[in-house]
């Protein structure tokens, strides 16, 4: 562990986290004892083949699920013994989720979609909510698409709205599950450019993917296999996604 890292804040700490699923008489061990710390400002990719436990792990990190055993401490708060409603509040204040299939509300404008998490935080007035949503949309480069409805946008734009929605509550950590999984190569790189920029601006990002190429653009790579960590390495040679995007063949006009 590098010297520089030690005095940085720990955002996420997993202590021997296990998660079993009962399927009939069988028990599926989706996570078989996972431990790691993630520090503020890291951009971590979690990789592994299908069924290796990536989504299960991310659900733990996102407080959507609780470990069968072990402890999970998010931003100093132990999560395992929390009630359902307490975890909901925790998600609302500390987590930003980006899903593979965007999950925007249909027939709803970009701003309204981004406002959604703040609707569940009574500290925000309608005005503050809108202002925060506009700011988040500007941060992902959609300042000119505020009132577009979800069905009037391309996949890349929808994913940007989803990222803005994940950022709007100023979360401790941004969690993305296969966030580029539904996008073409070019748009995927655009998304990586955006994530790298957010990383530079100080955001902590955990990016789950089954695509090993993406690992080159993050600061740390965790490799899962069979519910266990096989590899956890710092990436000292981070590739610049913007440069990679520029090298891609020019987009075809149709």
């Amino acid at each position, binding site marked *: 562990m590098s010297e520089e890292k030690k005095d940085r804040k720990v955002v996420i700490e997993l202590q021997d986290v296990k998660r079993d699923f009962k399927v009939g008489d069988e028990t599926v061990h989706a996570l078989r004892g996972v431990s790691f710390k993630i520090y503020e400002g890291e951009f971590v990719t979690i990789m592994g083949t299908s069924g290796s436990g990536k989504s299960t792990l991310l659900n733990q990190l*996102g407080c*959507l*699920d609780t470990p069968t055993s072990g402890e999970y401490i998010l931003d100093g708060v132990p999560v395992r013994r929390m009630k359902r409603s307490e975890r909901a509040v925790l998600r609302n204040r500390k987590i930003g989720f980006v899903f593979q299939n965007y*999950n925007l509300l249909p027939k709803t404008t970009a701003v309204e979609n981004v406002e959604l998490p703040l*609707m*569940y935080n009574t500290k925000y007035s309608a005005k503050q909510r809108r202002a925060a949503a506009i700011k988040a949309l500007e941060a992902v480069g959609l300042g000119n698409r505020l009132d577009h409805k979800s069905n009037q946008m391309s996949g890349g734009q929808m994913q940007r709205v989803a990222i803005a929605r994940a950022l709007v*509550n100023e979360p401790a950590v941004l969690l993305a599950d296969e966030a580029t999984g539904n996008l073409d190569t070019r748009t995927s790189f655009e998304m990586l450019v955006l994530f790298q920029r957010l990383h530079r601006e100080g955001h902590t990002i955990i990016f789950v993917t089954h695509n090993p190429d993406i690992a080159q653009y993050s600061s740390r790579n965790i490799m899962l296999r069979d519910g266990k960590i096989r590899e956890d390495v710092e990436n000292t040679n981070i590739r610049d996604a913007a440069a990679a995007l520029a090298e891609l063949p020019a987009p075809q006009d149709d």
Partner: protein
Amino acid sequence: MSFANLIRVAVKAILNNKIRTLLSMLGIIIGVAAVIIMMAIGQGSKMSIRKELSKMGTNLLSIRPGADTRGGVRLDPSAMQTLKVADYESIKEEATLAKYVSPEVTSSGQVIYGAKNTMTTIYGEATEYMDIKLWVVEQGDCFTEEDIKKSAKVCVVGKTIVEELFGDKDYNCVGKIIRFKSIPFRVVGILKSKGYNNWGMDQDNVMIAPYTTVMKRIAAQTYFSGINVSAVTEEKSDACIEELTAILRKSHKLKEENENDFTIHSQQEMMETMSTTMDTITIILVVAAAFSLLVAGIGIMNIMLVSVTERTKEIGLRMSVGARGRDISRQFLIEAVIISLSGGFLGVMLGYLGSYGASKIGLPSSVPLWSVILSFTVCALIGLLFGYIPARKAARMDPIEAIRYE
């Protein structure tokens, strides 16, 4: 989530699916409209019956032969022949609280003029009957005491008879001879029209003649079918009943232990009986309509359950960005309440329209305010009650499974 936000979200969801919402409201709309119209007609009829009865004079008392039959005892026919001319005369002489008195003998039959005829009822009365029932003689005059003494074959007729027999209700038939059950009567007066009463009876289809004439020449009986009395004032009605009872008991030579062989009803009492009857009918109708509201509530629940399933992904998303179970359940509860309240609102509108329509076709109808308030309360309750199960279903979803739902 704050209440304002909950409402905002619910309204948006409702507007996103207008046709479905309207369909699920339909039951409520019809149910509420039915309740409102039923209550309006019930209330309206009651009010107009009251008005009509009090127009006849709230100090009206009616003496009928026979003991009080409300106990349900069947009487032999002679018990119905207890009111005689002597009774009438005693009342006229002795009753100080009776302003007007008129004995009554009636008979129904055909009245003929030339080739035309019609069915009617002839009322044998004293001249004071005009004052008791507030009849106005429009043309000619009422028969006189002299006519009564001589059992003269004279009569006053209602407008319907004039129209039926002479082809024109404004025809002046004073002086004409008409025949009732082949007895010739000279028309001496024509009554001002009273129109139909609440039971749909044509009050103008009457002939009024001296009671002596009807008793001797038509009914051939020595007893009355009743005696109508006007008490001096409404307040004195009860005292007047006591006085009349005493007079009749004396005149019938009843002993202490004998029951009355006559019954005296006041208009007041009749009004109350009418009201209770109307209330019962109204309650039955309203209960029937209320059941349709129950069915409507089940309809809302059904649609809400479908809606919850359809929006599983949305529910998962909301939960993953921080909605608690109770935020989700409130969202769906409020949606159900808004649907049922809007349905209630449209139903009240429709009810008003229906009530207006009913009064246009002659049914007395007036929407009581409390029925509107009741409808809204019931609708809110229906929304809460039938929204509860779908809301709970939504709130109990697992966010991970919900967000993966396709």
